[in-house]
């Protein structure tokens, strides 16, 4: 090994704590880049492969009932490649060993051929034999969650007819990568299953012989779905078409897509911050090293090392830091990616796992890490290369301190000499102080941007479950039933209170903007499911009016008082003008609300309901569950407590992981920045501080100069960190907002306090670690060494 390389390794060994502190920050960047890009590509490639292999459709539409003779006509639509028509319906399931009812989505499976689109992938067993109408295939997660094997059976309430069904196989489908039951907030595979039965059996159960109520089409690649959607809507209008939609509105794909774009956002925002900070730290440390090694650089030049060799020598020092950081990052990234993949495996049902981060992602993340540290070291390395050898041999001129108005001010304030030293040093290196402060501010902001989510979720849960939806359960009916049936619901065992509600699918138009929504209609005096205004008072929707959630209103660009057109896709499919009488803040879904009586009048129908909201007596739950399994027309039940708990559990579990991760990240950044800054301080001021000690200053006073300056920088960082944190939180709430949900921006003082505490404590601890070196300061040696 060449002597100069040996110098490199020894220098690295001497600097190892500083190097590790930087490498850890770099490792965060590499790990997050690895995870986000790796998972992004894995998830999008897995999705693409799955959709391709199992021919996921492009456009979907539901109708009430359309004749099969329509299918060839649909196939004629310009751009349509293939068509799959089927029968679909929800049913209450009675599963052995399960008291609570479950909900099944029943889908017809063609008899002679396999489906051409949305092809289910058989996991186990076989597809149903059309001759045996009791045979079904269920989705694999549902089977796994309930312990079903082929040969097991359960019963289903098919439009009031209780039927015993036998499982002959399990399958997965590209339509149900994210499988979520009606009205649920989180997937729960134990209470919601997909059930494929032969066409014949499904037609009999849902009274659909010769007809279908769901259609999927594939369109030519690269073609816009809009014309096909319009053509489908025209064709299906007479048959109760509920409006065709493309993949962006498809529930499973929309969730997948939200996750994928979140990963993309993460890849774009976070790693650059870490790389930036580690680049800055490298440049700070290298700058100091080169200042210290001036005469060594001069010597190397004097004995014939070229500028390039010297430049490379210092770049390689940064390169070693990068190597450590990249290796750590690869390790951490692999673990992080694996846990993310495990999380995806829990949420998303893919038949094959390509959750492996490709080698090119490792290479790219490694190169990015190497590039940033090299960039950080470049300035110093070039400076070393440019240093004229004759000059390098002379000691550097002492830094020039100039008197400024600040000094006048300090003189007036009668500050102590150590305090003046602190302030003067801050001003002497304004850019470095500012960058150090910025690094710490980013650490503060990382904590704030992550833990505000806790309060945001509390608010979501509070508003959704404790303020607006106070019912214990929602009973969903397959068709609208007469309101008189509410009496029957009240008579069910354990039901204390029952209120009716109706859902109608409609397209709201305002100007050129339109949005397909489910309008909720309810009596004016409901006590359970309510719409609240900004002050928390129940909002009454007057006849002829409509109340919209703020996000929906924004999408349609309407304000309170505006008039919009509601094109109903159910009932008589008429279009009415409605005036917006109020807006409500809402975090889940895009709500639109009307008066139930007015709705019945509009539809010229006897009072009807789609949903019964009920409160329940806890002691009679089992009796109730037994009773509703046989309730005709009941297609689903949402138990609000389960729903809330599923939401809180899953989300909170993720939030805890995220909070921990970001706090660790903040600590790493703080330690990386503070430790290095303090070490550089100490190195620059060793002589000065030793002189003070010789002059009779105590350890405490000398430590005060060192730690004081670091803490002053840390304190200055706080308000900046609060601002950046609030800004990132704001950006996150915007980024996470979709039709499905919105995260409210809830910033409490406690959030800022936690952010500041984490960073100030970590900064103080790091500064104190460096301070310990002051005790070991060899006064005589320091004074003797020539800088």
């Amino acid at each position, binding site marked *: 090994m060449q*002597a100069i390389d*040996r110098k490199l390794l*020894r220098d690295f060994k001497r600097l190892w704590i500083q190097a590790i502190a930087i490498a850890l920050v770099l490792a965060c960047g590499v790990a997050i880049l690895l995870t986000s890009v790796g998972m992004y590509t894995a998830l999008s490639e897995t999705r693409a492969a799955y959709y391709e292999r199992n021919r996921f459709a492009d456009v979907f539409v539901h109708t009430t009932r359309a004749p099969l003779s329509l299918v060839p006509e649909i196939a004629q639509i310009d751009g349509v490649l293939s068509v799959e028509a089927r029968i679909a319906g929800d049913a209450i399931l009675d599963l052995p060993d399960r008291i609570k009812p479950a909900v099944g989505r029943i889908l017809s499976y063609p008899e002679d051929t396999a489906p051409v689109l949305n092809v289910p992938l058989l996991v186990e067993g076989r597809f149903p034999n059309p001759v045996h109408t009791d045979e079904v295939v269920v989705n694999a997660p549902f089977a796994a969650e309930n312990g079903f094997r082929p040969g097991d059976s359960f019963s289903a309430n098919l439009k009031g007819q209780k039927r015993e069904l036998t499982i002959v196989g399990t399958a997965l489908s590209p339509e149900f990568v994210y499988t979520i039951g009606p009205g649920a907030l989180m997937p729960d595979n134990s209470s919601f299953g997909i059930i494929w039965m032969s066409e014949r059996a499904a037609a009999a159960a849902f009274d659909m012989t010769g007809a279908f109520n769901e259609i999927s089409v594939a369109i030519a690649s690269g073609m816009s779905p809009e014309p096909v959607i319009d053509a489908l809507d025209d064709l299906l209008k007479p048959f109760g078409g509920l409006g065709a939609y493309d993949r962006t509105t498809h529930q499973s794909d929309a969730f997948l897509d939200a996750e994928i774009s979140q990963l993309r956002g993460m890849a774009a925002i976070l790693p650059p911050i870490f790389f930036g900070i580690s680049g800055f730290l490298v440049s700070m440390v290298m700058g100091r090293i080169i200042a210290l090694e001036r005469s060594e650089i*001069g*010597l190397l030049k004097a*004995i*014939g090392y070229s500028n390039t060799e010297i430049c490379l020598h210092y770049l390689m020092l940064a390169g070693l830091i990068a190597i450590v950081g990249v290796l750590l990052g690869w390790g951490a990234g692999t673990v992080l990616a694996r846990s993310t993949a495990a999380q995806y495996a829990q949420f998303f049902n893919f038949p094959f796992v390509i959750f492996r981060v490709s080698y090119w992602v490792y290479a790219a993340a490694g190169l990015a890490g190497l590039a940033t540290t090299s960039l950080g070291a470049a300035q110093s390395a070039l400076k070393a290369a440019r240093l004229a*050898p*004759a000059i390098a*041999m002379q000691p550097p001129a002492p830094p020039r301190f100039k008197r400024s108005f600040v000094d006048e001010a300090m003189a007036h304030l009668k500050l102590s000499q150590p305090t003046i030293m602190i302030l003067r040093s801050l001003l002497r290196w304004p850019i470095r102080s500012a960058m150090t402060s910025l690094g710490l501010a980013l650490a503060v902001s990382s904590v704030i941007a992550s833990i505000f989510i806790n309060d945001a979720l509390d608010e979501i849960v509070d508003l959704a479950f404790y303020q607006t939806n106070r019912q214990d359960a929602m009973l969903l009916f397959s068709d609208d039933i007469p309101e008189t049936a509410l009496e029957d619901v009240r008579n069910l065992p354990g039901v204390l209170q029952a209120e009716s509600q109706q859902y109608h699918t409609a397209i709201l138009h305002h100007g050129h903007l339109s949005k397909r929504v489910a309008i909720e209609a309810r009596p004016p005096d409901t006590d359970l499911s309510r719409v609240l205004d900004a002050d928390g008072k129940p909002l009454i929707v007057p006849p002829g009016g409509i109340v919209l959630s703020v996000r929906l209103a924004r999408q349609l660009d309407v304000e309170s008082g505006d008039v919009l057109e509601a094109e109903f896709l159910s009932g008589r499919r008429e279009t009415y003008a409605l005036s917006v009488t109020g807006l409500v803040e809402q975090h889940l879904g895009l709500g639109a609300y009307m008066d139930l009586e007015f709705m019945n009048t509009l539809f010229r129908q006897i009072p009807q309901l789609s949903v019964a909201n009920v409160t329940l007596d806890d002691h009679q739950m089992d009796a109730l569950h037994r009773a509703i399994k046989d309730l005709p027309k009941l297609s689903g039940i949402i138990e609000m407590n389960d729903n809330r708990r599923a939401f809180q559990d899953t989300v909170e579990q993720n939030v805890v992981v995220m909070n921990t991760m970001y706090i660790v990240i903040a600590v790493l950044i703080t330690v990386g920045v503070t430790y290095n800054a303090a070490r550089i301080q100490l190195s620059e001021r060793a002589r000065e501080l030793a002189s003070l000690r010789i002059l009779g200053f105590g350890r405490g006073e000398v430590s005060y100069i060192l730690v004081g300056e670091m803490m002053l920088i840390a304190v200055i960082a706080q308000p900046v960190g609060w601002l950046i944190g609030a800004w990132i939180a704001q950006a996150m709430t915007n980024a996470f907002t979709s039709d499905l949900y919105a995260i409210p921006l809830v910033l409490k003082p406690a959030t800022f306090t936690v952010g500041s505490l984490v960073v100030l404590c970590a900064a103080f601890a790091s500064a104190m670690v460096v301070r310990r070196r002051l005790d070991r300061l060899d006064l005589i040696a320091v004074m003797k060494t020539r800088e």
Partner: protein
Amino acid sequence: MSEIIFRTQGITKVYDTGEVKVYALAGVDLELYKGELTVLLGPSGSGKSTLLNILGGLDHATDGQVWFEDTELTDMSDRDLTRYRRDHVGFVFQFYNLVPSLTARENVQLVTDVAPNPMPAAEALDLVGLGKRMDHFPSEMSGGEQQRVAIARAIAKRPQILLCDEPTGALDSTTGVQVLEVLRDINERFGTTTVVITHNAEIQRMAHRVLFFQDGKISETRVNRDRLAPSEIVW
């Protein structure tokens, strides 16, 4: 005497510090001969180091010309100067300038790694009497020893010229004498042209020739007919 190895003609060096121009060298003409041990003597600030740096290819003259044998150094690019230093020149500085993170042997290897025809590092250290301390770090050696390591490092490449800027400046008399002895030994054994800067008038007595420096110029040249051995010098 023998061939000329260095020749300068009217070299000047001006430092422009903004407010004032400092004439570090104000027209220096000199000739140095192969194998000669020359002492540059003069008060601090008289331009000795500046001259040595220009001869050694560490710095450019503002004006004038410098020849090393038949090559003119004055117009050389940085790259060529590096090559020149690497191949021909050995430096010894007042503050030794050892790399603290390298042992004595490794400090010498810094040179032998890049020089075209070096001697083994161990041999160079033997020559300066440090054969037994090769694996010590600079911090484990006295000033005199460190300076001898620096000399070993300078001679390991078998340079044609050895340029020493106040090599005893930071040493006491006894260790200084040891260092001077090494220098004279090298000069005699290898015939290495040696230039020693000093402001210590006593040291001139070991030289073949003494150049007196004053205000950036050579004020006087003296040839020593009777040279003293370093051990006879005291200060």
